[in-house]
C-alpha cells in the first residue's frame, strides 16, 4: 500500500495533548492541512482502516473539531478545535479551593498546637526554634537542596497541574539527587492539565510512587517525617515557604498526606478518579448495573433515552473514558455500583 507523504503543517497543534486519540489527531491534522476529504479518501491517504477513520471522525465530531455539512469532512480552525477539546477536559482544579483548605489545615493546627507562625509570616528567617520562613522561591530552592541530603523518604502533595520551565528544571535536578541517594518518594498530585498519553518520558523512575486525586488539600513536602515545607501564602507561591520541624505539626501533616494517599488512585492502574455521582447519575448507573439498556432504564426513570445517554456521556467525560466498558471499570473500581450478584432483594427498591 502506498502512503502519500504528508507535509504536516506545523501550525496545527497536537490534539493528543488535549485528550484526542492519535488517530483523531492525524485525521484532524490531515483535514486541516489538505482540506476537505471523504472518509474513504482519508482512509486511502492515511493507510488507515475506514473503521478507524470513522472512529476518529466520530470523536472529532463530538468535540466539534470537524464538520461534514458539505458532504466531505472538513476541519474547523485549530483554535476552535482546541477550545472545544478544552471544554471536554473537565479536570481543572480549583486553586482557590486548595488555598482555602490550606488555610483551614494551618488554622486547625494552630488552634490545637499553639500560635505557630506558619501562615503568611511578615519577615524571613528563623521565626521560632521550630519554624523558619524562606521568603523567596530562590531561598526555598537552596534550603530544599540542603534539606534533601541523606533523606530516606519524601512525601509530596502537589496541587499544580502545570509547571513553569524553571520549576521543572530544578525539580528534575532535585529528583536526580533523590534517586541517586535512593530516597523513597511518594508524590500525590492532580491529573496534569495537558497529559500527552503518547509521551514515553511520562513513565516515571521506579523510585517514585505517584497517585492522583482531584481533591488535594495543600501543597506540602514532608521529609523523613521530621521537616515539613508549606507555602507561606497558598495563593502566592512567590512568597516562598515555611519550614516546620515542630514534631506534632510534622506528624499531623504526614498523617494528612497518608489519609489523602489512601483515597487517591494510581494513574498507572486504570486512572480512576474519585467522583461523586448525582442522584440521577446514581439511579442510571444502578439500573444499567442491573442489566437495563438505555431505553428500559429511561422508562423506569420516566426520562428520555436521550437523557440517559447524556447522563452517561457526562460521566464518561468526567472520568475521562471513552466507552461503556471503561465506564463500568471506573465505576466498579470506585465502588459506585455493582452488577446484580451484589444486589439483594431488600435493596432492589432503593431509588
Amino acid at each position, binding site marked *: 500500500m502506498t502512503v502519500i507523504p504528508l507535509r504536516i503543517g506545523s501550525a496545527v497543534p497536537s490534539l493528543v495533548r488535549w485528550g484526542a486519540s492519535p488517530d483523531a489527531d492525524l485525521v484532524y491534522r490531515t483535514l486541516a492541512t489538505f482540506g476537505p476529504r471523504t472518509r474513504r479518501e482519508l482512509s486511502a491517504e492515511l493507510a488507515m482502516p475506514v473503521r*478507524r477513520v470513522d472512529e476518529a471522525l466520530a470523536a472529532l465530531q463530538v468535540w466539534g473539531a470537524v464538520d461534514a455539512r458539505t458532504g466531505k469532512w472538513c476541519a474547523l480552525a485549530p483554535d476552535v478545535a482546541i477550545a472545544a477539546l478544552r471544554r471536554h477536559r473537565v479536570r481543572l482544579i480549583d486553586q482557590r479551593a486548595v488555598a482555602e483548605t490550606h488555610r483551614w489545615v494551618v488554622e486547625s493546627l494552630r488552634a490545637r498546637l499553639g500560635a505557630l507562625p506558619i501562615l503568611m509570616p511578615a519577615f524571613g528567617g528563623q521565626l521560632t526554634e521550630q519554624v523558619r520562613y524562606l521568603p523567596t522561591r530562590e531561598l526555598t530552592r537552596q534550603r530544599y537542596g540542603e534539606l534533601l541530603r541523606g533523606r530516606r523518604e519524601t512525601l509530596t502533595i502537589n496541587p499544580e497541574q502545570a509547571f513553569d520551565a524553571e520549576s521543572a528544571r530544578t525539580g528534575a535536578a532535585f529528583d536526580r539527587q533523590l534517586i541517586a541517594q535512593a530516597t523513597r518518594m511518594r508524590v500525590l498530585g492532580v491529573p496534569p492539565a495537558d497529559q500527552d498519553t503518547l509521551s514515553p518520558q511520562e513513565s516515571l523512575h521506579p523510585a517514585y510512587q505517584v497517585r492522583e486525586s482531584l481533591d488535594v488539600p495543600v501543597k506540602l513536602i514532608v521529609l523523613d517525617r521530621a521537616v515539613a515545607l508549606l507555602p507561606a501564602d497558598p495563593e502566592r507561591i512567590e512568597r516562598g515557604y515555611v519550614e516546620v520541624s515542630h514534631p506534632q505539626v510534622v506528624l499531623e501533616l504526614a498523617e494528612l498526606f497518608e489519609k489523602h494517599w489512601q483515597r487517591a488512585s494510581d494513574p498507572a492502574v*486504570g486512572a480512576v478518579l474519585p467522583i461523586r455521582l448525582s442522584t440521577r447519575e446514581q439511579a442510571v448507573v444502578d439500573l444499567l448495573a442491573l442489566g437495563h439498556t438505555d431505553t428500559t432504564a429511561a422508562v423506569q426513570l420516566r426520562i428520555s433515552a436521550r437523557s440517559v445517554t447524556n447522563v452517561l456521556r457526562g460521566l464518561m467525560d468526567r472520568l475521562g*473514558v471513552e466507552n461503556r466498558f471503561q465506564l463500568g471499570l471506573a465505576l*466498579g473500581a470506585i465502588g459506585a455500583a455493582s452488577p446484580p*450478584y451484589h444486589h439483594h432483594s431488600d435493596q432492589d427498591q432503593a431509588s
Partner: protein
Amino acid sequence: MPRITLSNRERELVALLSQGHTDQEAADRLGISPRTVTGLVRGLMDRLGVDNRFQLGLALGLLGQEHE
C-alpha cells in the same frame, strides 16, 4: 461475589480494552482475530454472569479493588 482468575491472554485483553482500545485494535495488538476477542469477552461475561460490557467493566473494576 464470584472469584475469577484471568488467563494471561484475558488479562492482556482486559488491559487493552480498559485503555480504550476497540476490539479490532486489541485483536491487532494481540495478534488474534476480532472474533477471538469477542469470544474471550463473551467468556468473561458468562463466567461473571453479566450481560453487557458495562456490567463486565463494573464486575472487573470491583474485583480489581478487592484484590488489592
